[in-house]
């Protein structure tokens, strides 16, 4: 698992392909949000949490969709499956890598978001990061499973978000509402109901994805 994680991180550090695309895609989304909604200062606070998470999720789908693509060339996935032991480890390796990429992009996007939309994020930064981690883990947990599931399917680019997005509705509700509370000056305690929802979602789908992953990659 650690070797797989190290390999993914190393490949990404060498060519920075996916990461760069994800980052600039997110930046472009911020531009599009601005021009499509023309947010004035007073309604920014209402729109910001939703816009932020839409940017994260669309960027995430872009990155996660590629996560098993590299393994398709040269039958790398087959080689990976030859590793003795639990196939769940392959899943965990990929998952941790995906979480790391997504969080890195989110960390870079947050200051830009605050700059473009004139939000004061710094007071709420720590609770906001907490929400981001919970949301990203759940998203990546299901996303990694479905990325593997659709990696070898025709029309995977359209099928992957079609399958993934309906399932993460609870996650969107939880993250956006919690982000709104935190940005509005609330503490994590006031958002605890939503954080519990996110934590429950993360736990349930981490376990399910870990257990079912071997059926996805079965030969």
């Amino acid at each position, binding site marked *: 698992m650690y070797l797989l994680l190290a390999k993914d991180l190393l490949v990404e550090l060498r060519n920075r392909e996916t990461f760069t695309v994800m980052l600039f895609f997110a930046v472009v989304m911020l531009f599009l949000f601005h021009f499509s909604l023309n947010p004035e200062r007073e309604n920014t606070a209402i729109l910001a949490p939703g816009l932020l998470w839409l940017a994260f999720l669309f960027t995430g789908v872009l990155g996660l969709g590629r996560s098993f693509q590299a393994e398709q060339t040269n039958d790398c996935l087959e080689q990976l499956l030859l590793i003795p032991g639990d196939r769940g480890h392959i899943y965990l390796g990929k998952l941790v890598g995906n979480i790391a990429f997504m969080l890195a992009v989110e960390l870079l996007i947050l200051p830009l978001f605050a700059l473009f939309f004139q939000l004061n994020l710094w007071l709420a930064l720590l609770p906001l990061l907490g929400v981001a981690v919970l949301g990203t883990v759940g998203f990546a947990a*299901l996303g990694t*499973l479905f990325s593997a*599931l*659709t990696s*070898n*399917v*025709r*029309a995977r680019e359209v*099928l992957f978000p*079609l*399958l993934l997005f*309906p*399932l993460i*509705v*609870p996650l969107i*509700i*939880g993250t956006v*509402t919690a982000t709104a509370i935190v940005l509005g000056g609330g503490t994590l305690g006031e958002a605890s*109901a939503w954080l519990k*929802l996110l934590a*429950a*979602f993360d736990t*349930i*789908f981490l376990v*399910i*994805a870990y257990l*079912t992953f071997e*059926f*996805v990659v*079965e030969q």
Partner: protein
Amino acid sequence: MAEPCLSGRTLANGLGIVALLAVLVGLYLAFFYAPADALQGDVQRIMYIHVPTAWVAFFACFVVFVASMVYLWKRWPEADRLAYASAEIGVLFTALTLIDGSIWGKPTWGTWWTWDARLTTTAILLVIYVGYLMLRSFVEEPERRARLAALVGIVGFIDVPIIYMSVLWFRTLHQPPSIQAGGVAMPESMLFTLLFNFGAYTLVYVFFLVKRVRLESLRAIIDALMAEKVEHE
């Protein structure tokens, strides 16, 4: 091979006739036997179709879930065909539920659509199972198609109650629910009509299911014969 197929067909058609009769009797009961609702009047009679179609929609998705688990466990192709057939009927009845629910919602709530938890969850359910069917249509090898679809059937079904709960919380914290589930006691004639229609639409579901599974089995037999023929050549 031909003999059991034929007798199975007669049985299925018999079931179809019974289901059709049951639906007709159910409609008669809904329109003439059950009394008009004190508050909503005749509009409320759509309940006798709406609630049973919703029940069939959710039951069909439950069958997909169970059949998918059986498939991953036992690898019976029959379980996969059952899941496929049930998912198709589930999509049909989910769409019907949304449509007849909208028709009911317009005169009673004054709107075709509201972001109520049940409505929203049903709509998301529809998208999940459309995704399930799309996935199936994009994978050619039967074994891999069955395996991947089964995973979607399982993960999707487990997610439905979580979606329902999250939408419910989201709604209740933003504004009070638009309708309160009233403790209105139903007169016996209404209850009987409703229960009869439950039975009628469940029969329709079973009939569709039997027909659809049979069709898939025949298709599998033909595919196997074709493969054999290609091998000989």
